[in-house]
């Protein structure tokens, strides 16, 4: 197992340290998820009643932080952007996957990452989610070789947004930052409104 991040290429770090780095990053990720209250299904599900948009704000700010960070790190020549692995885009399979994911999220109140955290803080409902998650993973892994034709039918390759819109990466970063800030403001207003209603 190797790291997907470009650290491997840009710095000469032995494999064992890379794995250690991955482990520490994973632990830190788990701690922060738990601290933010994302290990609790009843808290997460408030997102869908518009009373607590914390999950949305945290994830969107993570996207913006990563995007701005990657942009400036690569601009300064510290990170080789071409070495970052990008998942391919398969339009219809991803639309279907997104729907299944969304329905599962609303039903259980947990997503794959947060269900891991919840399992290790001893939540029984998370254990059921975990079992479902792994059943789905195994089924998909077994079925994938037979479904290759259907899956790759609507593939558009591993394009990024700036390639898709034929736009400068910097300009796109700015647009996404603007969208995020507007979305945070809007989410705050929605929260206020729905909290008042439910109170």
């Amino acid at each position, binding site marked *: 197992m*190797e790291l*997907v991040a470009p650290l491997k*290429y840009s710095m000469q770090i032995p494999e064992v340290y890379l794995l250690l780095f991955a482990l520490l990053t994973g632990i830190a990720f788990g701690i922060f998820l738990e601290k933010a209250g994302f290990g609790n299904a009843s808290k997460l599900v408030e997102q869908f009643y518009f009373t607590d948009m914390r999950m949305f704000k945290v994830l969107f*700010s993570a996207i*913006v*932080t990563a995007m*701005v960070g990657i*942009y*400036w790190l*690569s*601009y300064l020549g510290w990170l*080789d*952007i*071409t*070495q*970052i*692995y*990008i*998942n*391919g885009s398969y339009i219809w399979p991803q639309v279907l996957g997104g729907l299944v*994911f969304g329905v599962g999220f609303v039903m259980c109140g947990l*997503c*794959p*990452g947060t269900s891991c955290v919840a399992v290790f803080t001893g939540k029984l409902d998370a254990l059921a989610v975990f079992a479902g998650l792994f059943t789905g993973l195994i089924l998909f892994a077994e079925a994938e070789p037979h479904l290759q034709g259907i899956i790759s039918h609507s593939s558009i*390759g*591993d394009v990024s947004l*700036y*390639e898709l819109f*034929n736009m*400068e*990466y*910097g*300009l796109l*970063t*700015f647009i*996404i*930052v*603007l969208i*995020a*800030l507007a979305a*945070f403001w809007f989410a705050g207003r929605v929260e206020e409104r729905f909290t008042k209603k439910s109170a």
Partner: protein
Amino acid sequence: MKTNHIFALLALLAGLFAAFTSHTERNHIYPTWKFEKSRVEGTKVHFISPSHLADLLYEKQELVLLDARTWSEYSNYHIPTALHFDEDQKLKGRQKAGSIVLYGVEEDKDINALARDLPGKVYVLKGGMEAWYSLVLFPDMVEYKIRNSDQLLELLRRCAFFGGQAQNTQILNLNVRESRYREGC
């Protein structure tokens, strides 16, 4: 001022400054564009990138390719399925369905005027034959950064399809297994 307002302001500034830097060109990101509209000596010209043209031909899309170089250059080498422009003047009158791609040598400025005179949607190959050689037939891996092994294989396959060969491939250090990674939430 609240902490989140400070962070919002920082993000805004970082994004704003990013918008005024030309990062894509600096990083040789491949491929950067497919079609481009730009003004050459006051008139609008539609360009097509050599790599996109290669992709279209590779996918067997219906295109009319016109070679505006001299007959000897054309008979020496031309892009597959291309017709020599002077020899096929009759094409001017008979408009086939699909797009026309016109190409010549890079420094030939008359080609833009020629493209304007032709009927229908006409694209000019950006960089001419020189760009076709350096980007499609003999792409140099020192200049073009390849993102992953899928992209590399695709590029090599396309290269071989047109009878060319990629240069300096030994410098690539790609992990073939990377294409099997899947990301989660």
